[in-house]
């Protein structure tokens, strides 16, 4: 590998990567698409916040309140700049991607006027979505009497766009799709879909949960109307997600949760609401988590997203290549590292993914087994579950080698092949 990253230096920033597991096996963490590990720089920011600056935000006049509020809003600036948001006010903090997607689907259900979704309207998703980008749209269309439609997949695990012009039509109100699949690894041609959706006046929602951690992102250039992602997959804490939306859209949508901080004024008869972003941030927000996300963004930027993307590409290509040596492996999704993210789901003939994962775990290799919250995509390929290895900026070729050795051992253990 010709690597742009100094991975050995990066690994020193992640304390957990020195963990020894049962039988003194070093941790080989290949589950970053599930959640990433956290660098010391993020842990320090969380610790410092709680030790020195902890106070509620936007309510307290005292010095700690001012410090906490400044740090929280500075994190918003950091995230806005990181994703190329035209305005910091377009960055809404949520608890995760699921909440961000549900916020959009629910407020669309409550919207009146041009955004309202009703009988005869259509919402289009894809067959490779995570459950969190399927269920909210099922709920919306069921509640409003609208119709849910979806793009199918090719055998290679790419979107089948052959019928895009009939699928996305003048009845389409929303197109919601994943940018980088958490299961197949596919990187979708978002710009092509945005172009067609905007021709017919539909809103485009992008689930960027796997994209923002591993690709340079510019939401303005992407052209979508809404982008959702989550902090814990990008070296940040759990409990913090981001919804970016175009200002005009966010201003037209009704509030989501009601409560403190989202109001302008409250009387017993009725209330008026704050401007964005606070309109969508009812209650005490995840303060430390947002500040931690800001630190995570600083960390990723110090490494460089171009370099991270290049590393992800190299390590994925290396893993795809080495997996072909094992025998009996079927990769679900693109088998070449072209328009492909760093998650590889596969079947091993004769051994169930749970058993694969259990035996790998006994050697310190952590992968995910199951449906990865993408049951329809598994059904599309005629399987019920798969084993998934996923990589990040700290993943090394010897860790991929440990996976391959582990898979040979799995085959021996279960006497297959």
């Amino acid at each position, binding site marked *: 590998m010709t690597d742009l990253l100094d991975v050995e230096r990066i690994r020193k920033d992640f304390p957990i990567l020195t963990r020894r597991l*049962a*039988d003194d096996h070093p941790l080989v963490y290949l589950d970053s698409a599930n959640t990433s590990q956290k660098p010391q720089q993020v842990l320090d920011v969380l610790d410092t916040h709680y030790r020195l600056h902890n106070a509620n935000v936007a309510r307290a006049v005292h010095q700690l309140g001012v410090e906490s509020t400044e740090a929280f809003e500075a994190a918003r600036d950091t995230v806005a700049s990181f994703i190329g948001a035209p305005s910091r006010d377009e960055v809404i903090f949520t608890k995760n991607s699921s909440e961000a997607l549900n916020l959009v689907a629910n407020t669309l259900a409550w919207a009146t006027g041009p955004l309202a979704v009703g009988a005869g309207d259509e919402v289009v998703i894809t067959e490779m979505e995570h459950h969190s980008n399927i269920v909210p749209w099922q709920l919306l269309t069921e509640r409003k009497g609208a119709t849910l439609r979806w793009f199918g997949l090719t055998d290679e695990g790419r979107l089948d766009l052959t019928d895009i012009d009939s699928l996305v039509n003048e009845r389409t109100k929303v197109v919601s799709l994943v940018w980088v699949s958490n299961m197949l690894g596919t990187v979708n041609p978002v710009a092509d879909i945005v172009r067609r959706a905007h021709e017919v006046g539909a809103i485009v929602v992008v689930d960027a949960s796997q994209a923002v951690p591993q690709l340079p992102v510019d939401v303005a250039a992407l052209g979508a109307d809404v982008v959702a992602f989550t902090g814990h997959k990008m070296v940040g804490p759990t409990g913090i997600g981001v919804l970016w939306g175009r200002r005009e859209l966010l201003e037209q949508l009704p509030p989501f949760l009601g409560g403190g901080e989202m109001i302008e004024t409250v009387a017993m008869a009725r209330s008026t609401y704050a401007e964005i972003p606070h309109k969508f941030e009812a209650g005490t927000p995840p303060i430390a988590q947002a500040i931690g996300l800001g630190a995570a963004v600083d960390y990723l930027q110090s490494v460089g997203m171009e370099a991270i993307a290049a590393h992800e590409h190299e390590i994925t290509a290396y893993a795809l290549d080495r997996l072909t040596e094992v025998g009996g492996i079927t990769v679900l999704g693109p088998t070449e590292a072209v328009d492909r993210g760093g998650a590889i789901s596969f079947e091993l003939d004769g051994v*169930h*993914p*749970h*058993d694969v994962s*259990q*035996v790998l*775990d*006994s050697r310190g290799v952590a992968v995910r*087994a*199951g*449906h990865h919250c993408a*049951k329809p995509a*598994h059904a599309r390929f005629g399987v*019920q*579950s798969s084993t998934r290895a996923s990589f990040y900026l700290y993943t090394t070729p010897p860790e991929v080698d440990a996976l391959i050795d582990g898979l040979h051992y799995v085959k021996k*253990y*279960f006497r297959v092949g």
Partner: protein
Amino acid sequence: MDLNALYQEIILDHYKNPLHAGLREPYGAEVRHVNPTCGDEVTLRVQLAESADGPVVHDVSYDAVGCSISQASASVMADLLIGKPVAEAMSVHEDFLALMQGKGQVVPDEERLEDGVAFAGVAKFPARVKCALLAWMAWKDATAQVTTPLTEEEVR
């Protein structure tokens, strides 16, 4: 980590050559249970027969998709329960449940659980306990449906 404690030879044998597999007629009740976290599925049928000593488990048939633990568990369970009076089968069910939930501290009774004792090691792997229990929970559910008279609402 003692993998062999989890994957006992008996378990791997049942996984490779499951007993009583496939769905058969006649049956008194059919249920479908899934493990939502991993997607393992079992469709299971129970047929009871009357005897002088009360109802007896006449047949347990199943169609299961899942890992070695869940598949082997269905096989062991069907072999263990078929032919037993329902009351005794329920008591064996309780023993197996106690073993699985015992965090490795429960000593199984081989007289009663037979090949089921091979699952003692599973109790030390909390993530796999649900795999071992999938078919057992389905059996209990199906049996309850046969033995409990339908409510008026269900009849309608």
